[in-house]
């Protein structure tokens, strides 16, 4: 009985998650007339690809998508590359520095983006990074880093210290213990952090708006917003079509990487 309830709850959750995506697909295939029907239907009565044609014809979605992909991948990799060693150090070493660092990470989350955007822009300009994707990557890494660090140090802490000690007893040096024992166990944490950083960067709008000026370097969110007008009025059809396309790369990225996203690898590693 409880099993049935569990499945029912799971199904309800799936519907909850899937609804916006299905509705997006349905809207993308509707004509303007059908979008304004009083009784909207799930399945378009006269499906049309005109919205996709408009979306791709009017905006450089593919170019913008490729640029977004480069930025998101680079941001994700760079974030993990910087956060991983730092997270290990934070989780394993005690001391004043650790407390200060963790405190600082938390404090850094307090400032609203909008209040630091002008100083940030000035710094970027001094560095000659305005209007470059490298500049945007740097900003994205800076802003995902604190949370990524926090996330990863939680994972590192969950790897029992005893495993490293056991490796040491067997003659492994610190580096070897980390590479051979800890690193494989951290894979799910690394994957989760990669996903988090990728999606944050893929969706990010405000910094991209400020950093990228030239139409030739704009990312996907900046391109999608061009289908909207003032006061929430939008060209719903092309916007839905373009947004649907924009969700695909992150779905693919997730599909590729999610197999590594399992926990429980360490179950029974240490007798409690």
């Amino acid at each position: 009985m409880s099993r049935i309830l569990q499945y029912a709850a799971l199904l309800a959750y799936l519907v909850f998650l899937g609804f916006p995506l299905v509705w997006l697909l349905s809207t993308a295939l509707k004509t303007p007339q059908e979008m304004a029907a009083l009784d909207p239907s799930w399945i378009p009565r006269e499906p049309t690809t005109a919205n996709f044609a408009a979306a791709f014809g009017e905006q450089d979605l593919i170019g913008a998508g490729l640029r977004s992909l480069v930025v998101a991948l680079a941001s994700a990799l760079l974030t993990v590359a910087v956060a991983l060693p730092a997270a290990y150090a934070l989780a394993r070493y005690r001391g004043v520095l650790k407390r200060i660092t963790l405190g600082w990470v938390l404090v850094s989350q307090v400032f609203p983006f909008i209040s630091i955007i002008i100083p940030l822009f000035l710094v970027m300009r001094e560095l000659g990074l305005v209007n470059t994707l490298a500049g945007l990557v740097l900003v994205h890494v800076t802003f995902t880093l604190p949370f990524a660090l926090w996330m990863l140090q939680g994972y590192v802490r969950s790897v029992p210290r005893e495993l490293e000690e056991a490796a040491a007893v067997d003659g492994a040096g610190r580096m070897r213990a980390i590479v051979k024992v800890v690193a494989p166990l951290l894979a799910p944490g690394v994957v989760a952090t990669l996903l988090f950083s990728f999606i944050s960067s893929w969706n990010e709008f405000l910094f991209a708006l400020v950093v990228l000026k030239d139409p030739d370097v704009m990312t996907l969110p900046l391109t999608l917003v061009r289908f909207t007008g003032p006061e929430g009025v939008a060209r719903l059809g092309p916007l839905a079509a373009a947004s649907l396309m924009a969700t695909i790369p992150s779905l693919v990225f997730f599909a590729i990487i999610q197999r590594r996203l399992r926990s429980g690898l360490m179950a029974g590693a240490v007798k409690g």
Partner: protein
Amino acid sequence: MRITSALAAVAVLALVTACGGGDTGEPPGGPGEPVKLDFLSLAWQKESVAANKAIVEEWNKANPHIQVTYVQGSWDNVNDQLVTSFEGGDAPDVFHDDSPALAGFAAKGYLLDLEGKLPAALRNDIPQAAWDTVTFDDGNGGQGVFGVPFLQESQVIIANKKLLDEAGVRIPTPAEPWTWDEFAEASRKLTKGDTYGVAWPMKSPVNKVLNLALNFGGTFFQTAGGRTTVKVGPEEKEVLRRIHDQLHKDRTADPAALGMGTADPLPGFFAGKHAMLPAGVYLRQQVAEQAPDDFAWVTLPPLKGTTSHQGAVSQTLSVSADSEHQEQAVAFVSFFLNGRNQARLAKGDWLLPTSREAAADPSINGEEDGWDVATASAKDLVVAPFLKVNGYDEWKSKVATPVLQEFFANKISLDEAARRLVDEGDKVLERYQR
């Protein structure tokens, strides 16, 4: 591990830099090299974007020494984008915005004062009422003209033709518009069965109500001795009371539409649930695009109270004060907004041009899609009284929006609404006048 990570970081950064591509600034403008201008446009409708691009292309072809780059922005974020660009010294040379945003930018010295810099033909082609929407304090005690106003919006009524004919009401014309009384009467005749005479979408009620209040001389603000205060007297209450009556006394306005944004009642309008929809002229575009094939609709001219005056703001083009090529930027703006081009832009955005020459253009005076009625309504537009009120935005979001929403939902009386608009409003305004 740490060394590997560091190497990986360097490698990724190198990769990103290689892919980054974009250059960081203008090429050095040596002799013979064309001047480059960035033009941030907010056009978003398909036809309007096409018109913008076409005009820029014509300019670039005719002016090989002044090349303009068209950059498409978005209304939702343009002011955040501009503030950072101004502060960072990297603003577009020419940008599209609306007049309420310009007041703040002008006071901070971000904008070039265009007074005396525009060709007489353009200056004279646009009426003073429109120039008033872009004339602001320059932050140093003087006044300046900080943009060229080019598109304006009036409030018209979009109506279901079949229902109007069936109800046998007189169809108003620009020469003989409906009075508010006639409008109320027509709404009563049109309300039957499941059909409401009118839908008032009031998700953002403030600008709409304030612009319409001028029909009875309601200005909502008064300035005496250099101090601006909120005023809600009999003139201001008139439009408020009439809309409220339609909702709760006559019951000719659909209460379900109250929480809606401007375009949200369209499905109900097409389905015959609402016979009339008061809206900005631009909504005709969505009606034309989304209406079922057999749906007949008409555009009715603005209502008349003691006058037909409506408050208006303008869409504008401005030149950044720190543009390195101000003269060329002004020349481009003057070309972009000449009469012929304004007619194309107005048609693309389904709005009204400020240019008199454009207003006479046959392309925006036909009967189809209500262009004749829409274009004729431009003559009643005067500068919105709230445009030059410091602190208006805060009054609007913190005081007026909730108060008007509660009033239209019949949760508070007209007197209570008026009292709160004034008392709470004056407190807000006072902070801006210290």
